[in-house]
């Protein structure tokens, strides 16, 4: 049976490296207060929906919201798969 929460020792990756359809839990994020208002906070589950072409933004599902995150910001958010 798959565990709901992966063990803490699992390596973290940046949000931008998640493939479409992959999920993860936010472990570390930059000091941008708007992120928390958009639902991206420590411990939150996120799912990658799309990554736009030309190094465009990533689109995530956070709860029932579709959030657009700049690729440069996504590279500074660490998540645990």
């Amino acid at each position, binding site marked *: 049976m798959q565990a709901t929460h992966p063990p803490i020792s699992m390596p973290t990756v940046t949000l931008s490296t998640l493939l479409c359809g992959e999920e993860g839990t936010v472990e570390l994020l930059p000091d941008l207060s708007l992120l928390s*208002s958009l639902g991206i906070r420590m411990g939150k*589950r996120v799912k990658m929906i799309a990554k*736009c*072409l030309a190094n465009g*933004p990533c689109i995530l599902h956070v709860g*029932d919201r*579709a*959030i657009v995150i*700049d690729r440069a910001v996504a590279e500074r958010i660490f998540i645990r798969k």
Partner: protein
Amino acid sequence: MATTHTHKQQTILMMGLPNVGKSAIFSRYTNMHVSVSNYPGTTVEITEGFMTLGASRVRIQDVPGIYRLDEGTDAAQQVAIDMLSTEPDAILFVLDAVNLESSLFLLMQVLDYKIPTVVALNRSDLSGRRGQHIDHRVFATRLHVPVVPTVAHENDTLDALKRALVKQLEAPDTDYILHVGDKERWTDIERMIRRAVKQPIDPFDPHDRTAFLIRPVSGLFMALIILGLTFGFVIGFGMALRQFILLPIFRGALFPWLIAVVERFVAHDVLRQALIGDYGFLIKGIEWPFALVLPYVISFYVMLSLLEDSGYLPRLAVLLDGYFKKIGLTGTSIIPLLLGYGCGIPAIMATRSLPSRTARIRVAVMVSFAVPCVSQTGAFIALLGEKSLFALFFVFGVSVLALVITGFVLDKLNKQPVPFTLMELPPMLMPKPKVFGKKVAMRIKYYVKDGAVPMIIAIFFTAFLYEFGVLNVLGRALSPLVSGWLRLPQEAATPLLLGIVRRELAVLPLFDMDLNMVQFITAALVALFYVPCIAMIATLAKEFNGRVAVGVFVFTTVAALFLGGLFARTATLLLLLFT
């Protein structure tokens, strides 16, 4: 006893996240039409109106939506923060039922101001359709603030909200439960939501039917189809309306009757010519604004309103964000650019939702230079569409290319860091027919008031200037430029002069001129890039400063004439070589 019958007029300030329906509630309460769309940043300024509350008439203010009070990300959002310090008598806070977390966070920050507040839990119909049931009493009890579930287009819910407002104004109660620090707020919000939301929807809905609109390949493919259909509808529907309904009425019945009446009752030659001659006010003053331009205004606003209300525009903005960043802008710049195809003035005002002044000026310059307004677009389609669809697509292709090049050059001239793109995508919605119809009708009304009437006045004066020979004299004076450089007939100076007043007047007089295809395209390109109308120049001065307005005036004039002449010579040379 406190009462609403006070001498000082009371003021209610509306606050909430972007795109939660504040303006829709405001419209219902004040009977004022304000722009309502399904994307964040529709409201970019304070809108003020009056509503009846109990026995009183109170002032109500709608401000741009914002996520946090400690972080306004653009000029429009800063307006909302500043308005809190004006000490309103009450706050009508619009809580988003489909985005409770962020809404509650902002509400907690607002409650810190200790201003009497009533909360409207709006869009509860939408959350209900998504399988959620929200117990609003949890928020009311926990925060000690009145909460009323509302649906902006349902009168009974709005009446209940009014009653709660009357109560708060008569006996203000600001004994709110306050929170210290973000961490405490988020913890309490999560606790409240767990208790209030009975049937949380699947956070990762595998059946998200609109995801293909934002995935890179399918999204771009769909964008091409949607924009292609939009363009096709604007041309096809407008042309059909014009050819099969309006022109037969005007040319087949109205004009012959007007001509017969004038010939019978007006004996004076000059006056008769001014009424029904080459620039005859009675003929052109009706035909140009209503038979040539209006059909395309209708078809354009139908499509633009559909794109706005469905929630597609922010998806397009996200898809194009990576490309826009290469010219120093964010993808949301596409919204003012598209609005510019309607009218440049709201487009320039919509730049307020962009993250920096530099970005605002860049987009405003791009709109002024290479985005034809709906009246001018209608004139282009009417003029070129009949002669050659290739010519029409060529002119619009040049418009898009000029936008890209202008953006690129402006970025190179003044390199600035591009702000991060952080936003929420609104849900895709089916536009409500009544709201949609009202919006299109209001936009057509604005066209008649702000577009057609000035056009008719300009045609009136032109008719007399033409009959008195003034335009002929000016035409001769401009001959070296018009005939020498642009290779157009001398009378083409008239539309150039008229174009300063109204953009479409730089195109419409070309109808009656005997031009070849190269001359038609040359004149169309000059008209495209030429000076934006007087009203747009005034808006640029108001939104930025006189220097920007004068700069745009000079830049567009010089660039239009230079590019027009360049095209005329290049096309003539190519024709000589290949024919």
